[in-house]
Each structure stands twice: as structure tokens, then as C-alpha cells.
């Protein structure tokens, strides 16, 4: 049952082939069986079984949505009422969320059955899921490799069949990169499309929640529920939500696909370049036209991103002060000591690096040189995308420069880890929607196992009418 689509499972639930309680037990058993992958931080078994009973009753009453009774899991960055919401950090190891995130609320109302909370890099900072207080997550295709991050637990749970689908969040590639490394589909919607209310903030002008699933169809079903305007999120966009399922089977005849030459140069593994080449040939056969583009500002996306993200992170994470919730150090000498030690003892190294970097970039005398400069580069990158997307319908690119790397391989040098996000980061700066879809399975070196390869599709903010 674990490899069926949402539509197939919804059919099985309606025909009485199995109940939601049976389906939920099936996944709970798999979660136990594959515990060594470390995908979950918290498994909410009792809550899930109760929700499944309610879902079965709703289905019997004919009051069900496509997601009613379907097991899902939430990245542990979304607040869940009465359930630990750790954000992968010791800081929030004792934090029982007092309210639900809008995304959680919407999925609950649709009748989805939450199996638990998924592992992630601490406060969503990382590209390998090695920065979690709860330990590294393992890639199910090769357990010595990382699953990517920060939504590593989500990607692994979906890929290994430990949930039907999952939520993720993406600030610089945190949905798309783990989706690529684990061979699943992950979508970062347009900034503002999915409510950030109750989604613990990292870099507010870049953060966006989205679906992670085993097919575009499942991702569409999930996004349909997640998307929409929310009064409680001041940056939520008031665009109407289209019927995503209806858009899925449009023919590709005449579609113009842009390939930025900057994304296919030095640093891209030969196996990924070859897989993407095959994918482009498949699109050509379906009638699409491939056009090469140049986007010269892309190379500055990484420095601009790390300035903006660090600055916003230092500001957002100042709320964790050991006073109202979260970790507090023992025997503080005075209030300053309470702040310094609570934060010093509870944040991990990468989070500290970014808080320090952001504090520096925002401090007196440096604001113009770093933050303001980065915001200006952000404008140029956004303009570059606008101009490119006026000539083509979508832009395609690799998601990652290499296959999933080994656990421990890149932890010594943070800069090496940052460069992993080369192809995903610019999209967050521009606020565009982008997704990672499976595009092959290949080895990057002789003797290495074949691993999943992802393809990134980047689109404009509102659909152009009838391409």
C-alpha cells in the first residue's frame, strides 16, 4: 500500500478495500521497521489512529476530500497543537506548540491523518540534514549518503514509504535539493502562496512551505489544500488558487524551455549533465522547444543569499531568549547571563555561525556594504529572471551539482556546503515557484552506487494564459 498514489488510496478507502485505520497502522509499522533512517523526530501514533477513525467515519458519511484518511507527515518546523515542535533544535526540544500552523490546520480539516513530525536541519539551516539535534537522517538509496536538507526527514519519509506525502519548507533549496537527492517530487511555491503562520521563521522574505510527494499528481493534491490566502500571514498573497489537478495533463507541444548556460558549466557532474540531456531530448520529442539563455547575475546569488538569510535569521532567532518558552540554562547569574548561556547552550554550530554573520552584517557601519548591497543584487537577479521568462515558458536546470554526498563529507567546511545550493538559491531571492522532479538514476564515479538525479523547473509567478 505504501507505493500507491493518493488517488489510488482514496479509491481504496471508498471501496472499502481497506480502512484509514488499517492504512495508518501499515505506515506506523513501516516507520518502526525503518527507524534507523531517522526520518521522524516524533511519531504521533495515538493521535494518528484517532484521526484515522474520524476519517473512516467521514468517508462512510460521504463527507470526504481526496486527502481524508490519507497518512501524511509534517516537517517539524510547523507548529502542531499539543505536540512537540522542535525545529530540529535543542532550543525547542521541550516546546509543545500551543497552536496549529495554518498548513497543519488546513490538512487536519481536509481529513489527512498526521503520522508525526519529521527530522530536519536545525531551524532549517543546512543542506544535508546533519545539523539536526536529533542526529543525521540517512538516504534510503544509500544509507551512508546524506538525504539533503533542510527537509531531509520529509524527503526520506516519502522516498522510503514511511508516509504517503509530506510537507517541507524551502528558504534556499530545502525542499528541492532533498527531493532531488532522494528521487521524489518537491515543489517550492511562489513566495506567499502557502501561509507561513505557525511555520517557525528562518529568513522571512525567503521562507516558503510546499509539498513533497512521490508524483506531480500527489504534490498537486497536497498543494491544493496547503495553498491560499491567509489573513494571519502578512506576506500571504491574495491570488486565486487554480485547480492544480486540472493543469497536470496539458500537452507540451510548443512549450518553450530555457536553459541558463550559467547552470550547465563548471562544477556540474557529468552524470547529471547527461541525465538532463536525456530529459531535454524527451521534452523535444513531446514537441517542446529548447532555448539557451544567459543570466549573468546568477553567480552572485550565493553571496547575496547568505547575507540576506543570515541577517534575517539573526533577527528572527533573537526571540529564543530562554524567558517565555524553550530552553533555559541552569542557575543564571543575571538576565544577560540567562540570554547568553541559554542561547549558547541550545543552538548548534551552524545556527550560531549564521546568527553571528547576520549580526555582523546588520551592525552599525556595515549595513550598506552587506545587507543593502545584497538587496540590490536581489533586484538584479529578479530582473534577470523576469527578462528570461519573457522569452520562454519555463526555465530548466539541475537541482544539485553532484549526487547525494557522504555523511560527514562536507561538514568540515561550511562554504563547501553553501555551494551545494548553487542552482536553487536564486529562485528564492526572486520569489519564483520551482520544483524538483526525478530525472534519472546514475553514478557520479566508477564504483559508486547509482543515485537519484533531479531536474528543476522554474516558472513565472502567475501562469501565462495558454502557452
Amino acid at each position, binding site marked *: 500500500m505504501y507505493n500507491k498514489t493518493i488517488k489510488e488510496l482514496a479509491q481504496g478507502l471508498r471501496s472499502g478495500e481497506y480502512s484509514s485505520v488499517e492504512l495508518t497502522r501499515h505506515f506506523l509499522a513501516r516507520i518502526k521497521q525503518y527507524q534507523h533512517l531517522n526520518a521522524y523526530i516524533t511519531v504521533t501514533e495515538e493521535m494518528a489512529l484517532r484521526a484515522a477513525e474520524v476519517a473512516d467515519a467521514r468517508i462512510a458519511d460521504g463527507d470526504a476530500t481526496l486527502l481524508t484518511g490519507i497518512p501524511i507527515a509534517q516537517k517539524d518546523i510547523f507548529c502542531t497543537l499539543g505536540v512537540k515542535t522542535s525545529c530540529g533544535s535543542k532550543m525547542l526540544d*521541550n*516546546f*509543545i506548540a*500551543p497552536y496549529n500552523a495554518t498548513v497543519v490546520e488546513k490538512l487536519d480539516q481536509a481529513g489527512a491523518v498526521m503520522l508525526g513530525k519529521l527530522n530536519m536541519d536545525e531551524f532549517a539551516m543546512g543542506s544535508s540534514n546533519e545539523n539536526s539535534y536529533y542526529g543525521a537522517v540517512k538516504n534510503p538509496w544509500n544509507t551512508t549518503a546524506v538525504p539533503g536538507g533542510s527537509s531531509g526527514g520529509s524527503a526520506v519519509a516519502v522516498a522510503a514509504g514511511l508516509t504517503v506525502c509530506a510537507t517541507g519548507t524551502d528558504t534556499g533549496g530545502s525542499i528541492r535539493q532533498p527531493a532531488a537527492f532522494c528521487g521524489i517530487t518537491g515543489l517550492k511555491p511562489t513566495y*506567499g502562496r502557502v501561509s507561513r503562520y505557525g511555520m517557525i521563521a528562518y529568513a522571512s*522574505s525567503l521562507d516558503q512551505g510546499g509539498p513533497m510527494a512521490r508524483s506531480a499528481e500527489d504534490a498537486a493534491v497536497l498543494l491544493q489544500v496547503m495553498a491560499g490566502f491567509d*489573513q494571519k500571514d*502578512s*506576506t500571504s*498573497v491574495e491570488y486565486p488558487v487554480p485547480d492544480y489537478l486540472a493543469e497536470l495533463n496539458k500537452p507540451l507541444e510548443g512549450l518553450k524551455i530555457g536553459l541558463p548556460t550559467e547552470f550547465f558549466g563548471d562544477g556540474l557532474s557529468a552524470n547529471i549533465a547527461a541525465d538532463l540531456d536525456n530529459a531535454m531530448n524527451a521534452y523535444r520529442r513531446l514537441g517542446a522547444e529548447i532555448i539557451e539563455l544567459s543570466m549573468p547575475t546568477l553567480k*552572485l546569488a*550565493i*553571496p*547575496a543569499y547568505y*547575507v540576506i538569510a543570515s541577517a534575517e535569521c*539573526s533577527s528572527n532567532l*533573537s526571540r529564543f531568549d*530562554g*524567558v*517565555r*518558552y*524553550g*530552553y*533555559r540554562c541552569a542557575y*543564571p547569574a*543575571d*538576565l544577560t*547571563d*540567562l540570554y*547568553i*548561556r541559554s*542561547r*549558547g*547552550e541550545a*543552538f548548534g554550530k551552524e545556527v*550560531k*555561525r549564521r*546568527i*553571528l*554573520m547576520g*549580526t*555582523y*552584517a546588520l*551592525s552599525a557601519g556595515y549595513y550598506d556594504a*552587506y545587507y*543593502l*548591497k*545584497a*538587496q*540590490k*543584487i*536581489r*533586484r538584479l537577479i*529578479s530582473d534577470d529572471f523576469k527578462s528570461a521568462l519573457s522569452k520562454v515558458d519555463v526555465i530548466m536546470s539541475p537541482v544539485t551539482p553532484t549526487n547525494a554526498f557522504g555523511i560527514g563529507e562536507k561538514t568540515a567546511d*561550511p*562554504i563547501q556546503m553553501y555551494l551545494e545550493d548553487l542552482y536553487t538559491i536564486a529562485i528564492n*531571492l*526572486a520569489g*519564483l515557484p520551482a520544483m524538483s522532479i526525478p530525472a534519472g538514476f546514475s553514478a557520479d564515479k566508477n564504483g559508486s552506487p547509482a543515485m537519484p538525479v533531479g531536474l528543476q523547473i522554474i516558472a513565472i*509567478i502567475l501562469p501565462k494564459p495558454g502557452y
Partner: protein
Amino acid sequence: MLLTTEDVKKIAYLARLGIENHDLDSYTKDLSNMLDLMTRMNELDTEGVQAMAHPLDQVQRLRSDLITETEQREHFQAIAPQVEDGLYLVPKVIE
């Protein structure tokens, strides 16, 4: 290196962030490397470019001035490290 350990100590204090002495050198090195990466931004002339704060250039939405939140003091304080009589407790600030 672009930063000294003294700089890092000062930044850490501004952020009220405890850093162990034995970690100072590695933070100084990592932050210097990060700054080095960031100075690549100077390759691009941004004279006259308008800074971009929001990807969709939205302006802040206003709402009617109505009470929308209910009082949930006990509920929220249930997860606090230390409370007394409905107040959050911290070490004494004023002598």
C-alpha cells in the same frame, strides 16, 4: 583573515550568544571565509539599483482595528521555563 577573535567576541556579545573559548578560532576562520564569499558581491555595480525587500514588491496589508485574539495567558505560560502569579520570572534586573 578578515576578522579577529576579538571581533567575533564582540559580535557574539551583540547577539547575546555564548561561544566557548575553545571554539573562537574556528568561528573566526569560518566567519572570515563567509565574509570573503560575500565580498564577491562587489563584482557587480549596483549604483542606482532599487533594493528589493519583498519578492513580489507587496506593501504591508492593513486590517481593521478589531480584537481578534482571545486571552490565553495560562495556556501560553504552561510551556514557560518559570512563571509565578501569571508573570514570567527572570533573574532580578533592578537592585
